């Protein structure tokens, strides 16, 4: 079968489901499921990921890491290492500028110290030096020969240890934001608060009040591709960097800031990316490889091992959460009092702010207080992870809501419907919601076959809901018409979820041409205008809006050119079905190829660029139902059925919407059931491999059924909301509620491992 045959089959096979599931009937291309342009290269192994770049004379770089969780660096001696066979360059903190007095932001200073320790190491795995040598073996041997003298300090690995009176301080100079000095607690970087109404009144009006404390564990994004970077600095000071990331412009600015180089001296080319989930929005190896290349005069490649990925790249935060909810007997929420404490890792900056904003954003609660604390401890600096901050808070809130529903004998979906945020509700974090689709996701689950089906023995069912903002931001798109009339769409947004296909679908729809004839590519930092990172579920929304605008401008240009070719007034030309047409049908219509062939006579090459800062992201909501079956004698959980409903606004490429929904759920199931870091007393990581860091494997999962809800975002030309993140938010709460339903006990601590579940069952029996 040829590639074209496959495309055709795929489309017919999926078309029926598309039309029944989505509102895309209004469109010809949007809402269809063309095969992804990067698919063949990926399944045949041809795609070039971060580590695949090979350059003549390339050296291999490795990192020397701290064996201590907290220590002062007394001295570093690299003499022996530098003299070892094959070694071309050795760098340490002394080779990096100190940003602390340079006016750089606090985040830049932290990043600079995270990629290369200066006076102190703050976690096991913190970088203390890097080496470039002919071979990886030589580089490793040299890195092992670097002599670092440490003055070891006491360390803190948990929130409770970090904030206890007298705890050792990671950053003694740190000034806490939002906390009165008399309330200061050790290692607490900031406090955020969202408050409304009067808590006392709210709880006084409640017929039922439930309060629970929860803990969640730090979890890794678990991308399959380890971090990798290839740098080549030429003698004239220009540099090239190849790496996979969620935003090569961000990698460029962060790397050059840390190095003190001119931003535009570095060109960053995005490689294919093997997963990011938020974790590839920051830098690790990139500035090191650039500096090693500059020092050695040779290209340098650096690739992390899996254990380095686990030890030193970003998990998301673990947390302590307390939730107290009050409701009337009829089920109206009257008050919510929520405390969130989030691990930031070694430097300030957990997503506790977003957690506080999202914690009760699904609901209309008249009186609430949500307070959050950002806490540093001797573990790797956290990085963004799918809806950063929201899932842990939702786990706690959805668990307590479930108890409220049980206490009041109200169906859990009814309880949520009664309190659901709708158009016009003032969101808990401030703004008033425009049209949103939360209620529609609840109704979709209520009416789905799964929610109506009976449960088997030892099974339980749980409901969970979640909210995520989605964001807009800066994007650039360039659309070029080739001499043969075919189209290339180029953006600056790395494709982590199939967005190249969605960009092509927008262009196909706008210009009325076959999506399979469109090239959709991602330009490097020298080739295309700026784009923010691929994150916040923003690319289909914002970069899509830039593509749409460019195509609309191009349509106008094509009509103008056709008018010139026919020598008629512009107003007499319209663009229909991919062709310029005279409104009176007096001329033979002109295809893109016809217009392209004469481009030289109608104004030159046909190319349009649109660049914009997109506002008006559409909030995303998800409701999920899960059935679990618990082995009452071993505590083993099997997820037997899962259905997720999510408001996509409009599903541009439904397969990728479903993929995002399913992926979020799968990661949520891992977080709920098994994923956790196990640290040894000395602060080193005991499970730095996929063997003992247990992400779900395929056989752990049922088919994740999806229901795409489409309540168009009024602020987007096609009604797009983001879809990448909210799918993970409800999952842990839904699974916890299902486990409670199955065994009659509430688990408030993640992960809900077989051991924890058997403990709960034993206590209930004992």
């Amino acid at each position, binding site marked *: 079968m040829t590639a074209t045959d496959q495309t055709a089959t795929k489309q017919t096979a999926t078309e029926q489901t598309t039309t029944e599931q989505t509102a895309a009937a209004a469109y010809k291309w949007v809402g269809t499921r063309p095969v992804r342009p990067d698919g063949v290269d990926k399944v045949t192994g041809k795609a070039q990921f971060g580590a695949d770049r090979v350059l003549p004379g390339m050296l291999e770089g490795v990192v020397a890491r701290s064996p201590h969780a907290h220590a002062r660096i007394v001295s570093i001696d690299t003499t022996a290492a530098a003299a070892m066979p094959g070694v071309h360059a050795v760098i340490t903190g002394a080779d990096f500028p100190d940003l602390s007095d340079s006016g750089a932001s606090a985040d830049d200073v932290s990043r600079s110290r995270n990629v290369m320790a200066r006076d102190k190491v703050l976690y096991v795995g913190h970088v203390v030096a890097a080496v470039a040598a002919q071979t990886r073996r030589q580089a490793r041997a040299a890195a092992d020969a670097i002599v670092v003298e440490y003055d070891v300090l006491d360390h803190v690995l948990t929130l409770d240890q970090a904030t206890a009176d007298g705890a050792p301080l990671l950053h003694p100079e740190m000034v806490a934001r939002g906390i009165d000095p008399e309330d200061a607690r050790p290692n607490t970087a900031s406090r955020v608060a969202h408050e409304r109404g009067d808590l006392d009144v709210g709880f006084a009006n409640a017929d039922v009040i439930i309060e629970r404390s929860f803990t969640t564990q730090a979890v890794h994004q678990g991308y399959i591709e380890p971090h990798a970077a290839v740098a080549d600095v030429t003698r004239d000071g220009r540099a090239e960097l190849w790496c996979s990331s969620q935003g090569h412009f961000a990698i460029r600015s962060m790397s050059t800031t840390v190095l003190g180089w001119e931003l535009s001296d570095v060109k960053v080319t995005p490689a294919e990316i093997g997963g990011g989930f938020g974790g590839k929005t920051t830098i690790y190896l990139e500035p090191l490889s650039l500096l090693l290349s500059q020092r050695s005069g040779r290209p340098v490649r650096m690739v992390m091992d899996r254990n380095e990925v686990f030890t030193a790249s970003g998990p998301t935060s673990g947390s302590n959460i307390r939730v107290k909810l009050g409701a009337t007997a009829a089920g109206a929420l009257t008050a919510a009092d929520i405390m969130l404490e989030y691990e930031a890792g070694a430097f300030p900056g957990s997503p506790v702010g977003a957690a506080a904003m999202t914690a009760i954003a699904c609901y209309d609660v008249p009186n609430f207080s949500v307070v959050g604390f950002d806490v540093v401890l001797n573990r790797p600096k956290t990085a963004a992870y799918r809806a950063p901050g929201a899932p842990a808070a939702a786990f706690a809130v959805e668990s307590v809501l479930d108890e409220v529903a049980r206490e009041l004998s109200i169906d859990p979906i009814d309880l949520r419907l009664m309190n659901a945020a709708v158009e016009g509700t003032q969101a808990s974090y401030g703004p008033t919601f425009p049209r949103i689709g939360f209620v529609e996701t609840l109704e979709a689950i209520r009416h789905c076959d799964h929610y109506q089906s009976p449960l088997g023995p030892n099974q339980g069912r749980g409901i969970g809901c979640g909210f995520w903002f989605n964001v807009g931001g800066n994007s650039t798109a360039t659309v070029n018409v080739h001499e043969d009339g075919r189209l290339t769409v180029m953006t600056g947004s790395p494709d982590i979820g199939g967005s190249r296909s969605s960009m092509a679908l927008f262009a196909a729809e706008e210009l009325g041409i076959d999506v399979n004839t469109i090239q959709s590519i991602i330009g490097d930092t020298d080739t295309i205008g700026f784009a923010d990172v691929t994150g916040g579920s923003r690319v289909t929304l914002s970069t899509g809006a830039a593509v749409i605008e460019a195509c609309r401008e191009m349509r106008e240009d094509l009509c103008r050119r056709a008018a010139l070719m026919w020598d008629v007034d512009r107003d007499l030309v319209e663009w229909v079905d991919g062709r310029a047409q005279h409104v009176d049908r007096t001329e033979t219509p002109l295809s893109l190829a016809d217009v392209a062939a004469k481009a030289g006579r109608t104004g030159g090459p046909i190319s349009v660029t649109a660049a914009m800062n997109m506002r008006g992201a559409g909030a995303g909501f998800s409701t999920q139902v899960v059935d679990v079956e618990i082995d009452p*004698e*071993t505590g083993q959980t099997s997820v037997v059925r899962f259905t997720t409903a999510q408001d996509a606004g409009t599903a541009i490429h439904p397969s990728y919407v479903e993929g995002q929904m399913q992926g979020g759920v799968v990661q949520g199931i891992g977080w709920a059931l098994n994923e956790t870091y196990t640290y040894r007393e000395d602060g080193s990581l005991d*499970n730095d491999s996929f063997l003992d860091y247990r992400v779900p494997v395929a*056989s752990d999962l049922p088919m994740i059924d999806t229901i795409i809800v489409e309540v168009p975002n009024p602020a987007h030309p096609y009604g797009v909301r983001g879809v990448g993140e909210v799918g993970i938010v409800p999952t842990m709460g839904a699974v916890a509620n299902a486990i409670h339903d199955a065994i009659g006990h509430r688990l408030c601590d993640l992960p809900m491992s077989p051991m924890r579940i058997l403990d709960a069952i034993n206590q209930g029996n004992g």
Partner: protein
Amino acid sequence: MRYSAPTTVDEALATLTAEPNARVFAGATDLIPQLRSGRPEPALIVDLKRIDRLRGVTLTDATWTIGAATPTSHLTRNAGFAADFPGLTEAAGLIGSDQIQNRSSLGGNLCNASPAADSVPALIANDARVVVASASGERVVRVDGITIGPGATSLAPGEFIIEFQLDRPAASTSDAYLRMIPRTEMDIAVVGAAARITTDGGLCTGATIVLGAVAPIATRVNDAETALVGSTFTDDALAAVAAAASAACDPIDDKRGTIAYRRQVAGVLARRAVALARMRSTASSNESSQT
């Protein structure tokens, strides 16, 4: 690190005598991860897969012979073997994944000497023997005489295992192996339990019960066997099996499981493995009475 691939047992023995700092390997599914994680490299690694005697699954008279380096997928795909030893086949089929099983061997699983090795409890329960190659000649050893502690075997330097021998089960005899892992595959047993049961009508006339992952080496639970033999698999007898299994555990607390959890679940799995093996033994007696 050098590599060699002898094609006869004698050549392998000579190679090992010439280089004392050598490691043999078959699938290397334990060896490579260990070297990658920083264990000291030997001067020489000796690939046993090219030696004919170490590969293959054959039935001669009433004895199965399995080459020590045979990929476990060859074992699990052998219908005759699987009919005789459904539990051992299950155990071998639990190792890693399809990809791993195309490399992993029983010899490697046994000699890696992990307390959690999945095939070992079922090998012991079925009275497997191994043929050991040694410069001083071949010898036959019971399989439970090989592992002596985590990562340690009774083999002398330069010795290796050529093959496993298993006598076909007696009438109305069958086996089972169950393990607990937090996931469904690609994991290391938190608890493993193997049972071989012989029945006569409703009566238990023979029982071997072996636990994995709950002590430094696979552990035979004599008290459970005593409780079972002569019983009719009553609830009381099965409860006694569970209690004896829990009591026989000498587990550690680690990232994979707590002591309390391992003890409790060892009892559960031992009881379930007995029930499963019993069911199979009855089925196998029906079959033999039909033929």
